[in-house]
């Protein structure tokens, strides 16, 4: 229990003094995970919407696959991306291993199925409601995808938050492809893992509190951006 009290104090002190090392780690964590979510959204939103709107052979199997990939173990993704990016790997020439870019790639792979699967569900529900009206208006499937994505924007923000939560919290993938190098690829989760293994539990716990604060803060920000108009429009 003493650890907790000490950890709270330490966390407070680190935040209050805007500790340079901490700020660096926090900013890198945000940069990597937000970039990963952005890339995953670019792929996952259209993919999920197309899966919801179109009908083609193999669609059911593809939905099962995407849903299953939501549970991808981060270490496995880390390993696969590691193999891709390592010097002997197919993308070795890019020399991305142990860079923040590699960490972003790994997290984007983790998050894309989450955003795609949740988007598929959300857009599917909305499509049931809109289908006849859109067809009556003469909207083709391609335009329907855009319309449904826009009209589901409030629910999709939640899907993206789920993806962000996954990215910012995972340690397995970033530690493999990033290597937890100080000042280069050290993020919140890898720093916590390191401090824990070094036995500095108070610092690890303090970083843990800050990580949770960070996740809460990003969620609050997104909620605030969904203004009253939008909420009303969902009624």
């Amino acid at each position, binding site marked *: 229990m003493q650890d907790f009290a000490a950890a709270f104090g330490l966390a407070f002190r680190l935040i209050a003094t805007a500790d340079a090392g901490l700020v660096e780690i926090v900013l890198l964590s945000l940069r990597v995970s937000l970039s990963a979510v952005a890339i995953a959204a670019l792929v996952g939103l259209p993919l999920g919407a197309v899966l919801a709107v179109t009908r083609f052979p193999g669609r059911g199997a593809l939905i099962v696959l995407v849903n299953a990939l939501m549970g991808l173990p981060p270490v496995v993704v880390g390993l696969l991306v590691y193999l891709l990016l390592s010097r002997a790997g197919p993308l070795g020439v890019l020399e991305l291993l142990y860079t923040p870019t590699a960490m972003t790639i790994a997290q984007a792979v983790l998050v894309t199925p989450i955003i795609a699967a949740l988007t598929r569900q959300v857009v599917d529900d909305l499509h049931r409601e809109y289908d006849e009206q859109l067809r009556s208006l003469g909207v083709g499937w391609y335009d329907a995808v855009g319309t449904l994505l826009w009209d589901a924007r409030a629910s999709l923000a939640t899907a993206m938050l789920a993806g962000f939560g996954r990215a910012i919290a995972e340690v397995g993938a970033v530690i493999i492809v990033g290597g937890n190098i100080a000042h280069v690829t050290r993020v919140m989760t890898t720093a916590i893992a390191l401090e824990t293994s070094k036995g500095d539990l108070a610092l690890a716990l303090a970083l843990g509190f800050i990580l949770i604060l960070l996740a809460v803060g990003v969620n609050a920000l997104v909620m605030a951006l969904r203004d009253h108009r939008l909420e009303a429009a*969902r009624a």
Partner: protein
Amino acid sequence: MPEPVAISRPAQAAMPSSAGDILPLRAEALSFEAGGRRLVDAVDLDLGPGTRTIVMGPNGAGKSLLLRLLHGLIRPSGGRVLWNGRPADAAVLRRQAMVFQHPVLLRRSVSANIAYALKVRRLPVAERRARVADMLELANLEALAHAPARVLSGGEQQRLALARALATRPEILFLDEPTSSLDPAATAAIERIVWEAADRGTKIVMVTHDIGQARRLADEIVFMHRGRVAERSAAFRFFQAPVSAPAADFLSGKLVL
């Protein structure tokens, strides 16, 4: 502006409401089956321009299905629908509109809902703006132009759905019990807009349960019973002396099954 819609170029934007391109609408032996039941049974129907056709009949008579078959939302099990002698294509669909029993409004503002229907038809922005303003005025929704559509009252929502449908200047407008859940004032507002649309030359095909509404609006009545057209008569004749037994029962207040 007597400019016809180019059949070979369905993306053509200009669409006058006067040109009679797609009517008459003809249903030939039109049938629809689901779950082993014949819900629409060999309906033959000719619908020419100009008149307000009201489709009546008890629940389950196949009225809504008939409308959806004609509009092309569902595929018939048998028979066919011809628009001025040819099957429906993209250009034909562009000249029709439908208002549903429960309005489906996009999660956007009132004016954006109307603009959407025009954007789908690739109308130039200036033309869109002008038509949105016209339709807001027609539906008496100017004050709510920027309100989110989903917070409107039931009557306002249905007025908006109707305005959106008419914004595309359809040659034919299908309405599926648009006022069934509205109060008299809201119903009157809808009926006024339907009247105006008909006056501008839009063919009206409307399903209703409401005998009073049918009396107010109809030029002619198509009475459906058990998936078939039991009777089709001019409105004044229908209400004075219906020919078919189910229609007579329906009008005299008997429960028609």
